């Protein structure tokens, strides 16, 4: 296959993105094996992977499709709880942890994708901020519904109740998986950093391949100019839905990964704040910039831990850092300086710089 100039550039750029993730994995392994990894940071490794997947998938909706979604944590929640139920439901049948994890991730993705379809069909027909409002409501509804659901496994299979634990009627032998507002208890910690990195790589593979294809171009065409896209025969609804469902499904997988890292999972964890947090990752990393999302998600998940020294002022410092990063990364003069520095570095000699338009 002969590559075009754009094709080559793209290949290099994608390789850097994949390479960055693999390198980060290797570095962490080295640091860990030499015993320099703090336990608090080790505990953050799987959540970091989950948040990276969340940020990259939300970037597909916000950056590539150009629609604002404020309920991404809702899809994460769906994936988390369906993943937990699957992993515990399969405990007696499938012994191998990785297989149960895989099943949990897949089911989490499918369930979240299905809900993405259900939410997307009516919401994506509307223009403007409607999707933001509908997804915001969706996230809250999911949180409140999961808060009232009781799920248990009895001798005859899965039982669901909306009232209380007793009405599950499990008797002595059954185990309760989901206890309404108490959340899921006794979850097996099946997730590992390695599995997280693999999920990140799969997510990147899906999103990057989608973006640089016929479907991806159609999605971006809808974003850039709806009327022009229609005028060249592109179905607006179809490609909006494609992007939204893939985004939701990946968030579902991220949720399953996240949940299976803890012994207890509550629906409150996946609230509006989490949706906004992921949106902050996307905006800070650059809208439409996949590599930026990865870096922003990783750094901002670790940052609060790094700021422990500030004690009570921890979140204040976090906010100040956020604002400073925003200001500097969007400052034209600093951007120019950076370009000049890169150009000088590449050429080796300080030359007269041609102004970029």
């Amino acid at each position, binding site marked *: 296959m002969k590559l075009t100039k754009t094709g080559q550039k793209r290949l290099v750029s994608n390789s850097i993105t994949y390479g960055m993730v693999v390198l980060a994995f290797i570095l962490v392994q080295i640091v860990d094996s030499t015993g320099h990894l703090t336990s608090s940071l080790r505990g953050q490794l799987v959540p970091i992977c989950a948040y990276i997947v969340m940020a990259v998938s939300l970037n597909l909706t916000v950056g590539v499709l150009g629609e604002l979604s404020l309920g991404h944590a809702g899809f994460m929640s769906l994936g988390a709880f369906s993943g937990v139920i699957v992993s515990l439901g399969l405990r007696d049948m499938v012994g191998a942890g990785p297989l149960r994890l895989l099943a949990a991730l897949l089911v989490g993705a499918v369930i979240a994708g299905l809900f993405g379809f259900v939410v997307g069909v009516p919401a994506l027909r509307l223009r403007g901020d409607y999707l933001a409002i509908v997804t915001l409501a969706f996230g809250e509804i999911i949180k409140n519904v999961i808060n009232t659901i009781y799920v248990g496994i009895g001798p005859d299979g899965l039982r669901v109740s909306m009232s209380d634990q007793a009405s599950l009627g499990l008797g002595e032998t059954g185990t309760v998986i989901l206890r309404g507002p108490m959340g899921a208890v006794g979850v097996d910690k099946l997730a590992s950093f390695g599995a997280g990195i693999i999920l990140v790589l799969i997510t990147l593979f899906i999103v990057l391949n*989608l973006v640089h294809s016929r479907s991806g171009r159609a999605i*971006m065409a809808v974003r850039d100019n709806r*009327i022009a896209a229609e005028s060249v025969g592109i179905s*607006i609804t179809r490609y909006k839905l494609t992007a939204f469902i893939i985004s939701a499904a990946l968030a579902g997988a991220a949720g399953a990964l996240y949940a299976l890292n803890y012994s207890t999972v509550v629906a409150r964890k996946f609230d509006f704040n989490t949706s906004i947090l992921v949106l902050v990752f996307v905006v800070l990393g650059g809208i439409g910039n996949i590599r930026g999302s990865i870096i922003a998600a990783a750094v901002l998940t670790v940052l609060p831990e790094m700021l422990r020294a500030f004690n009570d002022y921890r979140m204040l410092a976090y906010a100040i850092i956020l604002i400073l990063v925003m200001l500097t990364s969007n400052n034209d003069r600093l951007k120019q300086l950076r370009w000049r520095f890169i150009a000088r570095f590449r050429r080796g000699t300080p030359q007269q710089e041609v102004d970029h338009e």
Partner: protein
Amino acid sequence: MNNLAKMVPVPSRAIIPERDLGSTPILEVSHLGISFGGLNAVEDFNIIVGRTEIAGLIGPNGAGKTTVFNLLTKVYQPTRGAILLDGKDTAGMSTMQINQAGIARTFQNIRLFQALSVEDNVKIGLHNQFKYSTLNAILRLPRFWDAERKAHDQALELLSIFNMEHMANDTAGSLPYGAQRRLEIVRALATRPSLLLLDEPAAGMNPSETEALMANIIKIRDMFQIAIMLIEHDMRLVMGICEGIAVLNYGKIIAKGTPEEIQANPAVIEAYLGQKKEA
């Protein structure tokens, strides 16, 4: 709306002018109209365009020319009248379906996919020519490589009509104005239309660019054997290349005919220059 359109009879042969229209004309519009809140933006619009005809739609500003294009491409759904494309009724079709049925267009205020490359803009035009599923794209199956290679070759070939191959990697939004207009035409051609609608293709072009554009419009017609309908204010272009011209004023056709007939028509002169006051 469907019923309304069906109630209108197929245009009688009597209004077909003395031109070679082929066996069936590519476009037959009869009694087309739309009102916005009681205002008739376009009223009783009738036109017939032959298979390889270059037709002009002219008129003063605000006459409703672009509205006609928006009606033909169903950006607005007409309130009255019928549009037959290649003899088939287009009632109830969406903008997307109209394109698939064979009408492509450019826009008065350029609507490119600004952030994407020139090549990607053309490839988006080729969306329905080289198809493969999203799954094919994600898994990078052989179908993907095959279709992408064909789309790439075809995109460059289409760009070569205007000698724009060397710009393929540039960002569409960074192109000079004239090149953006040409790119829009290329993108429209990529959808393989049988009727191409050009909304002020020469707007903002200098005389030599306009000259080249005129030659290119004829070249495109001859190459692709398609009909072209254009809205234009540059009379040199309109009179130079159009075979049939319709003049629109206040949403109504006030004159139809060959360039010579239009130039001599008192109603047209009045519409453009205003009524002569009695002394």
